C-alpha cells in the first residue's frame, strides 16, 4: 500500500487525461488508507489539514459532489466554505476570474470548482498560478469538480476506487463498459482516460448520436449494441445518466426507445457474469437508463460509490494540501 516516493507531483487536479499511472494509483492507495484510518473509530476526524481553507465554488447544482468534498475537508479538519453562483457576487455580474482571485485573496488554499463551461477550472488554475495569491505563500490548488462536458476527475477516481474494492486492486485487463450518453458526459470522458491509464479495457456503448466527435482518439473501443456487448461478459458496467438538461432535442427518437435499447433492465443484468459490478454516477433516472430492480440489487455499487467519493476526495485534498511542495 505504501509507495516509496511520497510526493506525487500534483499541483491541481484538473483532468484524468494526463494523470500518470503512478499518480492515479497513489491517489487510490491513499483513498484506501483514508478509509482504513477512519474505520471503527470513536472520532471520525483527522487533524491533517487543520488551518487549511477549502472553498467549493459551484456554478451548477450538485448534491453528492459538493457534500462529498465538504465532508472530506471537514473530516481532515480543513475549514470548508461553500460558494454557489446564486447568492454570491456572480449574480451581480462578477467575472469568473475576479471571483477566483477574490477567493484566493480571502485565504483559500484550495478551490473546488464546478462550472458549466468546459475548461473553466483550467483557466482559474492558470490565472492563479500566474498571479500567486494566498497570503501565506502563493499556491492555490484548483480541483475540477465537473466542467461542462469535459471532465469530472474525482468521479472517475471514486469509480476506480469502487471497482478496486469489488474486483481487486489491479484493474489491468479488467473490461469495463460505459453505457449511454457519452456525448454529454464528463464522467465518461474522465473514466475512459483513467481506466485506460490503469490498464483496463474500456468499451463505450452508445447510439451514434450520443458519441462525441473525436472519440476515435480516446483509448477505448466503441459499439452501438448493448445486448451484443453484454454477451462478452464485462467485469463492470457503468451506466450514465441521460442528461436531459444538456440536450436540446433530436438525440434519440423517444425516451422509451432509449430505455429499450440502452437501459440496463433486469433481463440484461441477468446476462452479466456473477462478479460483474454495476456503477452509476447518480443521480439515476430509474426506468430510463437503469431499472429500479438493478439499481437496488447486490451487484449495484451505487451507495459504495458515494462512500468511496469521500475517501477519494480526502486523498486528493491530502496530496494537494498536506505537504510542502504542494504549497
Amino acid at each position, binding site marked *: *500500500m*505504501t*509507495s*516509496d*516516493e*511520497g*510526493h*506525487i507531483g500534483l499541483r491541481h487536479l484538473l483532468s484524468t487525461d494526463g494523470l500518470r499511472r503512478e499518480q492515479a494509483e*497513489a491517489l487510490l*492507495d*491513499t483513498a484506501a*488508507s*483514508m478509509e*482504513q*484510518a477512519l*474505520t*471503527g*473509530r*470513536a*472520532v471520525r*476526524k*483527522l*487533524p*491533517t489539514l487543520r488551518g487549511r481553507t477549502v472553498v467549493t465554488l459551484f456554478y451548477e447544482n450538485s448534491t453528492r459532489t459538493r457534500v462529498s468534498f465538504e465532508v472530506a475537508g471537514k473530516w*481532515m479538519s480543513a475549514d470548508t466554505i461553500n460558494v454557489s453562483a446564486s447568492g454570491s457576487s456572480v449574480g451581480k455580474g462578477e467575472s469568473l476570474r475576479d471571483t477566483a482571485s477574490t477567493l484566493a485573496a480571502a485565504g483559500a488554499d484550495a478551490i473546488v470548482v464546478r462550472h458549466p463551461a468546459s475548461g473553466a477550472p483550467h483557466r482559474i488554475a492558470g490565472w492563479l498560478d500566474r498571479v500567486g495569491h494566498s497570503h501565506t505563500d502563493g499556491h492555490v490548488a484548483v480541483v475540477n469538480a465537473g466542467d461542462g462536458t469535459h471532465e469530472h476527475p474525482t468521479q472517475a477516481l471514486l469509480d476506480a476506487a469502487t471497482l478496486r474494492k469489488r474486483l481487486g486492486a489491479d484493474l489491468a485487463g479488467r473490461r469495463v463498459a460505459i453505457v449511454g450518453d457519452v456525448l454529454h458526459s464528463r464522467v465518461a470522458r474522465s473514466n475512459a482516460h483513467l481506466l485506460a491509464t490503469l490498464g483496463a479495457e474500456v468499451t463505450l456503448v452508445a447510439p451514434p448520436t450520443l458519441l462525441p466527435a473525436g472519440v476515435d482518439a480516446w483509448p477505448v473501443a466503441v459499439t452501438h449494441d448493448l445486448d451484443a456487448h453484454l454477451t462478452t461478459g464485462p467485469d463492470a458496467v457503468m451506466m450514465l445518466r441521460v442528461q436531459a438538461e444538456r440536450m436540446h432535442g433530436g438525440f434519440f427518437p423517444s425516451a422509451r426507445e432509449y430505455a429499450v435499447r440502452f437501459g440496463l433492465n433486469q433481463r440484461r443484468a441477468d446476462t452479466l457474469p456473477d462478479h460483474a459490478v454495476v456503477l452509476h454516477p447518480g443521480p439515476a433516472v430509474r426506468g430510463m437508463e437503469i431499472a429500479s430492480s438493478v439499481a437496488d440489487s447486490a451487484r449495484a455499487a451505487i451507495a459504495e460509490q458515494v462512500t468511496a467519493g469521500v475517501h477519494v476526495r480526502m486523498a486528493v485534498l*491530502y*496530496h494537494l494540501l*498536506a*505537504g*510542502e*511542495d*504542494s*504549497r
Partner: protein
Amino acid sequence: MPTRRRGGPVPNGASNAEGERELLSSADIARTVARIAHEILEKTADSGAPVVLLGLPTRGVHLAHRLAERVTAIDPDTTVAVGTLDPTLYRDDLRRQPTRPLADTDIPPAGIDDVTVVLVDDVLMSGRTVRAALDALRDHGRPRAVQLAVLVDRGHRELPIRADYVGKNVPTNRGEDVVVSLVESDGADGVAIR
C-alpha cells in the same frame, strides 16, 4: 525521517568500508525481542487488562508481530492482539516535507478501550512519531494505559517522551543514521549505525 533504514546489515565487523558499525546482530535482535516480551508480560500482569501491541509502520509492525509471538510462546494463557497504527495523518511536520505516502492502519476488531496498548517502533529519536501516534490513539478510543517499546533508543528527544521497553540505548550524533533491517522487509536482521 530522523532515521534512515536503507541498506543491509553489516556482517560481523566493527566497521566496514562504508563506515557502517554493527550495533545488533541477528542473534542480538532475537534475544532482545525475547527479553522485551518477558518484560511486557511482567509489567502488564497485575493490571488484568488485555494487551494490544500496535506496531508503527513499517518495521514496528514486524517487531509487534514478533513480540506477540514470543509473549504467547512464554505464556500460552496470555492473549495478545496485534495491530497497526499509521500516525502519518497526525504528524506535526507534514508541511515541512513532500507529501508522505500513507501506510495501513489496522486496529484489532475488539478496539482499544480499556486495554493496555503497547506502541512498538524500531527506533526512538525525537519522539514526534510517538506523539502523533498518541494523538491518533485518542481518536480510536480510550486505552487504560499506553506503553512504548522500541528496539533502539538513539537519544535526541524533542518531546517529553520515554520508552517503557528499550532493546538498546545507543548514543548517536544527529548526523548519523541508525539502520534497522528486518527479515520481513529487508531480507536479514541487523541494526547498524553509519
